[in-house]
């Protein structure tokens, strides 16, 4: 181990500030978000009417499925939905 003086220790500690709490929370919610998303996709594949609801209003469909995600997770799901739509069109 290097022999750091107090100033160097302080400088190195400053290199690792905490990540924004909302980012950490969103990453921690990933397993739940994935489970909710898997469930939503499976249901959308079985149920055309539900798929339309999902495409029309993702937040509402999520809420109806019993999942209350943080704004950043919902935003991530939006982007995922958009990329799926782009892939389907392209």
């Amino acid at each position, binding site marked *: 181990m290097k022999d750091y003086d107090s100033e160097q220790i302080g400088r190195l500690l400053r290199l690792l500030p905490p990540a924004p709490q909302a980012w950490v929370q969103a990453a921690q919610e*990933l*397993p739940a978000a994935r489970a909710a998303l898997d469930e939503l996709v499976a249901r959308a594949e079985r149920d055309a009417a539900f798929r339309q609801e999902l495409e029309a209003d993702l937040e509402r469909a999520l809420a109806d499925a019993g999942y209350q995600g943080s704004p950043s997770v919902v935003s991530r799901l939006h982007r995922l939905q958009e990329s799926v739509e782009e892939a389907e069109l392209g």
Partner: protein
Amino acid sequence: METAEQSDAQLVARCRAGEPDAWNAFVERFSRYVYAICSRGFRLGREDAEDVFQEVFARAYEKLAELRSDDAVLPWLAQLTRRLCIDRLRMLTRHASDATEPDEHAADEELRSLDDAIAVRAALDAMGDPCRDLLDRFFCRDESYRTIGEALNLPAGTIASRISRCLAKIRADLMEGAGGSARLEE
């Protein structure tokens, strides 16, 4: 055993076993490092850094079972973050008129400093509170003596001397390579 005392390998094993709260602890433990690579190493803007940060943990969650050595989770995350940052920068430069390739060399220099920072951070975590809380507030959260004193109900002058003692202890722990045993004497 408290989560902070668990090795990276133990934490990865708990995640893989699907233990409750293990994933939360995993994100908590490595979030500073991933964040620092995105924001300091590659200097991504806030929105891009957030996208990469989330993508790193999404892929880590998916691929954790494929990790060859549980002890190697830190370099694995570093490599994953590095790759995704470069991908993001390349994507951004494709859309920019003054497109330049990402400076991987400069980023790697910064990443080496972050590896040293991780070692110091691990020693701090092993020391536990009150040193961990005190040094984290002062160095990582940029809180003033006064703010820390108000939060901990201590005079500002006492905060300065405790920070100094904690730094001496963490330095001793780093030299011994022991970590974990030191506690700030009240």
